[in-house]
């Protein structure tokens, strides 16, 4: 399972990075979303999969899965929701004001 997950993670990262490097603002935002998914799965996979029950002590199981990546991912999901919304608003405000979503045209100019 870990092997296939690792390969899937590789694909997800490849696509995420590819999207982030493109010119269109919308694609960049979707790319960050995809990257986030990749990171979540990476965190889970790194601590081995299916090694026990859910980390609820009420279950009284023999073994539990690692709770630490779950705590990290939970934080990350909520943060990435905030960041993605921020990106979205930034993107559409920029598009509204500047009339383009091409990153090459959105290059900053020198201050002077």
């Amino acid at each position: 399972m870990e092997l296939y997950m690792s390969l899937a993670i590789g694909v997800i990262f490849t696509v995420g990075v590819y999207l982030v490097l493109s010119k269109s603002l919308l694609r960049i935002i979707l790319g960050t979303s995809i990257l986030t998914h990749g990171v979540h799965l990476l965190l889970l996979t790194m601590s081995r999969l299916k090694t026990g029950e859910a980390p609820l002590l009420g279950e009284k199981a023999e073994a539990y899965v690692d709770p630490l990546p779950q705590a990290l991912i939970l934080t990350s999901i909520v943060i990435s929701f905030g960041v993605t919304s921020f990106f979205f608003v930034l993107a559409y405000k920029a598009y509204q004001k500047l009339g383009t979503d091409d990153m090459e045209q959105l290059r900053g100019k020198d201050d002077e």
Partner: protein
Amino acid sequence: MSFLLIAVFLPFIGAAVSPLLQKLISRTHTGWIVLTIPVLLFAFFMGQITSIQNGSSISTAIPWIPSLGISIALYLDGLSLLFSLLITGIGALVVLYSIFYLDKKKEAINSFYVYLLLFMGAMLGVVLSDNLIVLYGFWELTSISSFLLIAFWHQREKSRYGALKSMLITVFGGLSMLAGFVMFYVMSGTFSIREILGSLDIVTNHSLFTPAMILVLIGAFTKSAQFPFHIWLPDAMEAPTPVSAYLHSATMVKAGLYLVARFSPVFSGETAWFWLISFVGLLTMIYGSYRAMKQTDLKALLAFSTISQLGLIMSLLGLGSAAAFYTGGTDSLFYTKATMAAIFHLINHAVFKGALFMVVGIVDHGTGTRDIRKLGGLMSFMPITFSIALIGTFSMAGLPPFNGFLSKEMFFTAALNIKEMDIMDLQFLLVLVPVIAWIASIFTFVYSMVLLFKTFRGPIQLEKLTDKPHEAPMGMLISPVIFASLAIVIGFFPNLIAYSLIEPAMAAIHPSMLLSGERFLVSIHFWHGWTTEIYMTIGVILIGTILFKLHHRLKLISEPIVRKVTLNNMYDGGLYLLNRFSKGITNGYMTGSIRHYLIYIFVFLIISLSYTMMQSQSMQFDFTNFAPTSMYEAIIIVVLVLSVIAIPFTKSRMMAIILTGTAGYMVTLFFVIFHAPDLALTQMIVETVSVTLFLLCFYHLPKLSKKIAPLRFRLSNFAIAAGVGTVMTLIALSASGNRSFESISDFFLKESYHLAGGKNVVNVILVDFRGFDTMLEIVVLAIASFGIYAMIKLKLDPEGEKMTLPKMSSRGKYAFPVIKSNDVILQTISKVVIFIILTFSLYLFFAGHNNPGGGFIGALMASAAFVLLTMAFGIKTMREVIPIDFKILTAVGLTVALLTGIGSFFVKAPFLSHSFGHFMLPILGDTELATAMLFDLGVYLTVIGITMNIILTIGRDE
């Protein structure tokens, strides 16, 4: 808290408070309020004279960074007392003068006094600090306040230029001085000046001794405008005249002299110290006085004169250090006369130069110009000003009976004395000292006369003046009159200050020459008989008068210098090249293209990660313990991979969003499979809310471009992307196959119930073990949501906004009404479902500590209910049903979380320590309550506030 600390910090407090006070009493000039501070401090320091005179000293210290040996240690001895009196005394007079100089309606006087008080406090800090690092801090603060004051009229380009120049040069010197201080710490293990003096044996024999000396001297030379660092001082004259009088003549530029005097006990006796200070001082003196003769602007003349006088005092301090070459007896006392002259002239210079700067200010004020080619004959228009100028210039030129005459005589004595020294290698050079001193004095005489006579005598040229010349108002004359009277009083009764100020200051500069209880005997007399010095003075007057008469005919001394290579040009050119160079480098990689920046990041990521993996030999994969894969899981993986791969190929934005959503739901399924119920719940709701959000923004988003980017562009992107993907796969494999150390997770699993009383380990980690992280996380989220709010409300282009406004209202449509549905089924079902969702949200929140759920999930669930409400009934109904401002809710939630954390202070526990216990409650029976729940409540409220704020803000926008 000792008085000394209060004395240093009073000006800072004044700087903070005076603008507020000004608002309360708006009728009075801020200056009157500010004036009380230097007056009080002056009185305080005057009160210290007797005890300091008797050889005692005051010190106080409060620890600051004890681990680095840094404490705010203050120390008042003769030397610091002298400077403190100068700073506060002249400060008081300058503030008084400025009240009449700066119009309270036309000028930004509030910021002026804030800067001035800032400077006053910093300068007091410099002269009172015993700790070198604290001294350095105050030293740089004087540079900064000087920068602000020079640029006070910041609309003028020259002001900004002068401010920047002075800042760059003095801060450069300050930094080199800091390096010297650090070397002292390396040598002696302490930053305290007095402790360094205590361990002189170690310090003087250390190999870093000479480098430290040179670095400290660079600091002193830049601050005191010694050649070749003097170039900033003439440009600093763009500051308002009271500032020039205060900072750039009386106090700040003397900080360098103070530093040299302060370090004299450490360095004197060093040959290099003696030569460097004496000859840099003499060179500065003669160069400054020569250039002063050529100036046509009165303030520029005074600036060069100040440079020259600073050089004079500097050289005297150098000559005085010769005393340390002899041990005890009359020989060494013989050379301390130079130190005495230095201190005496320091006071005198502050007095007469203060008067002269104020005179120039009055002339500028009264006629509208400072150019001596336009001035002349002002004597009859400004009789009082003329009298003050007469006293000031005669004193500066060294004419009796004024104070300048006395110190000039003493200067000649010191210069002549140095010839007697017989232990130097370059003996013959010492003969030059009196010669240079004499020539420079002639120049000084000439420019003093130029200043006086070309301004006040000769024909009046009314047609060249913008204003009709008139005498200054009385208030403006008070300060210069006091200065002028001091020049006369000190001239006639020099011993008034000899016992009280000069003797203790000398004791601080030459501590090793006194046994305990002894003191220097300073007695200054007018008449010494027909000595060499008096003949030298007569010579100065004779030749000086001749030169002055020939002044306008001798190009050598009257024409401005026009050369291609000047220090100023070198400074300008150097600055320009430095700018261009760094700009060239920066522009090379800061292209403004996000893609380039991301490429740097990703390439660095690939290289650093793969290199680290190679180095640590973690490229070993152990497939043995991997979990088995079922058919069901295989299908999910395939769907996930396919949906992700399809995204870059789709041309429709709707499709792209749906594919991303699919990937998100597949990840949710994985969370279910991998026993992460909390994650699955959160991801599910977030994905749903995100899709809502995407739909809200959908109409505003640009269409995906149909154009296909060039192949090279796509290939290079793909190469980098594939590189990152490969590295990530390798990391995932190697990390899941190996464990190089014990994970902390076992601790969490074991202790979650014992320590935190919660059975849901993930939730316990979030709210208890790592509660601080969560605290900051919700703060970040709150910032993001307010950022979105601000961005939506932001009106970048007010005119464009006006144009679009009517269009908007005519359409009258907001995002929610657009998708508002009249569907009866939706509305009817919603009414019921919303309550079910809300109840479920509350359940999730309360159950969170032991079962799946918690603040985050519960809050997201509640938000989902509100979103449904909004979609079904429109934003108006939503507002009526839930009249809560979600921005305030966010703040309330943050406060609850923060207060929970602070609550642990009351039981003397660290921030965010939690506690729990079992309680018998009426209906619920035996219930476990934990303070972590309270914290989770904060998280719950904050996240609801944030989510709703984001969604409503976006939904309400056009």
